[in-house]
């Protein structure tokens, strides 16, 4: 058996993971960077995005492309609005105190998850992808008749998976433009640098916080809508992505958006590649331990410049 085709396949799977992870982790990183809030409920916003995508697709019906595009708009907006409500009703009232915020978002995690269990149920449900052609990966080998191309059996990817990678890249660029080239991005960065000074200059910090929390949650939901045609919507699906995005945000350096994206690619790829060689459980154990040790011995992340 040739190893290389499996590596290529592992890389593509890894890039899909990385794309989704990057979107979700950028949301988490944004919330941590601007608000200094560790949002443990981030995984549930992701899950809610997937579940809402199913609801939207189920209600609209018709061609999968139409319902999918509708879900792509509706689910993140709904999840973002919910996050804004949670921010004003809970986080603002406890004044974003770090420990109490963590406890409150753990509470929020269970509320969202369990309400989903009560309404959506415990089944995993698929959303049909808007398009889904199979692409086989060709491979070359030397035979008696010279160099020939063949298709290793069963190995392939789909156009949808490639589209997810492309779409995520576009979205990440859009976020970068939003943060660096627009007025609202400037306001967010000002609030991140110094909340009090920003307020003194007439920035409505409360509104910025609500917006950032909503935007972060919306990004998680968007990531989920993208992944739900590949991986079914289930009420417990937020758990693993939450841990992974924590990992990504930490490795990338807390609050640094560029670092977050690099780390997402790194983690996504290595996750795809490690699982080629090891059983998924062992792969997870190894990945978890590596990250934990990075956090212990390089607390500012691999790309961070100084200790937080």
């Amino acid at each position, binding site marked *: 058996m040739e190893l290389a085709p499996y590596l290529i396949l592992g890389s593509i799977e890894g890039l899909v993971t990385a794309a989704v992870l990057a979107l979700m982790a950028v949301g988490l990183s944004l919330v941590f960077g601007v608000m200094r809030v560790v949002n443990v409920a981030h995984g549930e916003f992701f899950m809610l995005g997937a579940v809402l995508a199913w609801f939207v697709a189920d209600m609209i019906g018709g061609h999968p492309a139409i319902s999918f595009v509708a879900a792509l708009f509706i689910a993140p907006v709904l999840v973002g609005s919910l996050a804004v409500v949670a921010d004003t009703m*809970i986080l603002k009232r406890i004044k974003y105190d*770090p420990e109490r915020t963590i*406890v409150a978002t753990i*509470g929020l995690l269970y509320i969202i998850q369990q309400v989903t269990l*009560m309404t959506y149920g415990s089944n995993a449900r698929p959303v049909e992808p808007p398009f889904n052609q199979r692409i086989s990966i060709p491979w070359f080998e030397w035979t008696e008749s010279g160099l020939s191309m063949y298709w290793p059996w069963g190995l392939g990817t789909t156009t949808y998976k490639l589209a997810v990678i492309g779409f995520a890249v576009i979205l990440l660029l859009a976020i970068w433009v939003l943060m660096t080239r627009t007025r609202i991005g400037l306001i967010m960065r000002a609030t991140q640098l110094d909340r009090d000074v920003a307020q003194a200059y007439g920035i409505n910090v409360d509104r910025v916080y609500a917006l950032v929390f909503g935007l972060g949650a919306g990004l998680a939901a968007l990531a989920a809508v993208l992944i739900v045609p590949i991986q079914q919507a289930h009420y417990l699906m937020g758990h693993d992505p939450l841990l992974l995005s924590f990992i990504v945000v930490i490795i990338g350096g807390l609050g640094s958006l560029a670092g977050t994206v690099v780390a997402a690619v790194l983690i996504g790829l290595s996750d795809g590649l490690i699982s080629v060689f090891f059983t998924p459980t062992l792969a997870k*154990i190894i990945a978890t331990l590596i990250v934990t*040790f990075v956090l212990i*011995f390089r607390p500012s992340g691999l790309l961070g410049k100084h200790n937080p």
Partner: protein
Amino acid sequence: MIEKTGMTDARKSLYFHLGLIGALFILQFILPAYHHGNLARIMVLACYAMGYNILFGYTGLLSLGHAMFFAAGMYGMGLPMVHLGWTPEPALISAIVVGVVVSAGIGFLALRTSGVSFMIVTLMFAQAGFLTILYFGEWTRGDEGFVIKQAERVMAGFDLSQPTNRYNAALILFSICLLLTIRLVHSRFGRVMIAIRENEERTHMLGYDVHFHKWMAVIMSGTMAALAGAAYALLFGYAGATFASVQYSIFPLLWVLLGGAGTALGPFIGTLFMFYLIDLSSSFTTAYMLIAGLALVLLTLFLPQGLVGEFRRKVVPWLS
């Protein structure tokens, strides 16, 4: 502060808690079988919460990975009993040793970080521990878990699967943990712990070895959690990976917050309340964790001191 009667706060607090232990002893003759069994379970889980409280409530370190210590005790007890045929006595010692070793090792590593990183590192270690239990499913039986047979659960001549013995064994363990906590809080060591919680920088400036005290706090906290895990395996005859999952790291946080962090009695009250809340709600919905979530949010909003904390603030300031 010396009162008119000459009784110190520490002494008053001690009598109060001894009174509680006495009340719990008497309760076993009154309670119907169902609640009798529940209370035994609550007392064991309260030991877990008290262990958590040493680190979170008194030292101010929020760990999200205590399930790892609970599971260390549970499997430290269960695995040798089932696979090596050990009797409960050496198995209990092995559970404690495993608890000390795991908490010392994890504490040593995790304490290189602080704040948010400490929470995430402990969460990650616990996740790695949980996955390790699943990975060695051949021996641990993974999520399904394994049962420790009734005949093997006989310690010092007492059959611990029998309700009365089980209740009293739980009560003994509970009393030991409660009195140890009170003893600790009033000792020099405990006061340094509290000083670290209040102001780490200042404690360091005063010349105390902050790192050593934190490390010892992790070890004491983790070992008490392991002891609770071992007792759970022995008294209820079951060990499973669920007890190592994130949910079981969140539970002690919830119990301690609900009861009152940094109060000796808080963990028990919190566990008692939450146990019956979940017990009640699970009778009409499978989404019983919704109650836990609502409780966490409402607590942070309206009752940050917890039940016992509020009680102490308003009624009995001498409670430890």
